[in-house]
Every structure is written in C-alpha cells, then in structure tokens.
C-alpha cells in the first residue's frame, strides 16, 4: 500500500467514523426518549387508576 493510498483511506475512514459516531449518538438519544415515553405512560396510567378509585361509586 502506497503512502497516498493510506492517506486517502484515512480521509474516507474519518468521514465514515464521524457519520457512524453521529448515528450512534442519535440512536442512544432515541433509546433514552423511548425510556422516558415508557415512564410517562406509566405515570399517566397510574394517575388514571387513582382518579377512577377516587371517583364516587354509583
């Protein structure tokens, strides 16, 4: 492998690695958002249950 080939490969690798890192960061953020949505769903469900229990029967 010549020096030019090594440098060209390095340049393309840098671009590829950056895009990959960016996608990884976005995917980690999506995982966090999914967890937060699940937590909020649980919170809303618990609130509805509490409201139903508190409502007068009959």
């Amino acid at each position: 492998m010549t020096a030019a080939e090594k440098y060209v490969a390095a340049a393309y690798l840098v671009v590829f690695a950056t895009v990959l890192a960016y996608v990884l960061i976005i995917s980690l953020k999506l995982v966090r958002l999914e967890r937060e949505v699940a937590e909020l769903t649980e919170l809303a469900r618990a609130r509805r249950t509490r409201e139903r229990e508190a409502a007068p029967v009959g």
Partner: protein
Amino acid sequence: MVAAVALIAFFAPEDADQGLSQKIFYFHVPIALTAYVCFGWGAWKGLLHLWKRRPGADLESYVAIHQGVIFGALTLVTGSIWAKISWGVWWAWSSNQLVLFLVLFLFYAAYFMLRFSVEPGPRRANLSAVYALFGVALIPVSFLAIRLANDFIHPTVFTSNGPQMSGRMFATFCISWAAILLLAATLYHVELAGKRLDSRLRELRELLA
C-alpha cells in the same frame, strides 16, 4: 453514498497531476460546500425567527449550525490529510482559503458557547439568531477570498470558465455532493425530530407531575 463511493473508486479517472490523492476531492469539496449550506440555512432560520417570529425557527437554526460545525470539522480534517499528501504539510497558514475557513468554523463553534451561556428563553433565541446572521457574512468572504487574493497554494477548481476537470470527474463530483447533501438533510431531520420530541416530553412531564 454507496453509488458515490463506487463512482469515485471505479468511474472517476485518476488525476494526471495528483494521482490517487485527488480522490479526496470528491468528499472534501462537497463536505465543505455542505457546511456552507448548513451555515446559510441556520442563518436563514435565524432570520425567520427574528423577522416572522416563527415558532421552532430557533431550534431549526441551532440544528443546522450544529450540522454545519460537524461538516466544517470534517472539511478541516479531510483537507489537512489532502494537504499532507500534496504539499507535505498538515496545514498552510499562508493559504487564505484555509485560514478563512478556519475562522468561519471557529466563529460557528463559538455559537454554542454563546447559546449555552444564556438561560433558555426568548433572549437566548434572539442572541443566537443575530449571531448566526453575522456569521453568514463570512461565507462569501471565505468562498471568494481565494479568487480575489490569488492563492497559489490551494487550487481553484471552479472558475468563471466553468469546472476545471473532465466530464467524468465533474459527474462524480455532482453525485458525491448530492449524496452528502442528502446525508446532511437526513441527519438534520433526524436530529430535529429528536430535539422536538425531547422538548415535548419535558413539557408532558411537567404537566403530569
């Protein structure tokens, strides 16, 4: 992106002067032009925020500038690698094009320092929008400086006589730029959707608390 890489590897002819190292051009220049587009888009969204008070324009401006800084950093890194092969040095302070691009990059990198030093709210959005608009003035300076200052180190491929390359090289360049623009647009929309979702979830959490 796959098509662009395939064209660069198999379709575009090797440059008679620079040889294989010229293949960096097909990514380096489109990435630099995309960085300009992102900064321009960020400034346009900043203007919309100040002028029309369009909701969400501030966030769109921020995401566009974030993308621009990422593409700007890639421009500097790929350009530096190309400089090492062609000129034997990683950086040339005597090249106006390089220095002006670095100034533009640092200017927009400082945008984040300004943005995150102000509390979230209308003041932060206004200051960020004004800063983004000031920065956009550097784009034509950076782009035209090399043509006006006769920079002998950094090559000028696009002149008033058209692109200084063969038809196959130009076609490969156009497809590479289209691929990079598409990548930038996709990343912009994904990041923007993530940020909007984040902000709505925060609001929902406050409502449910």
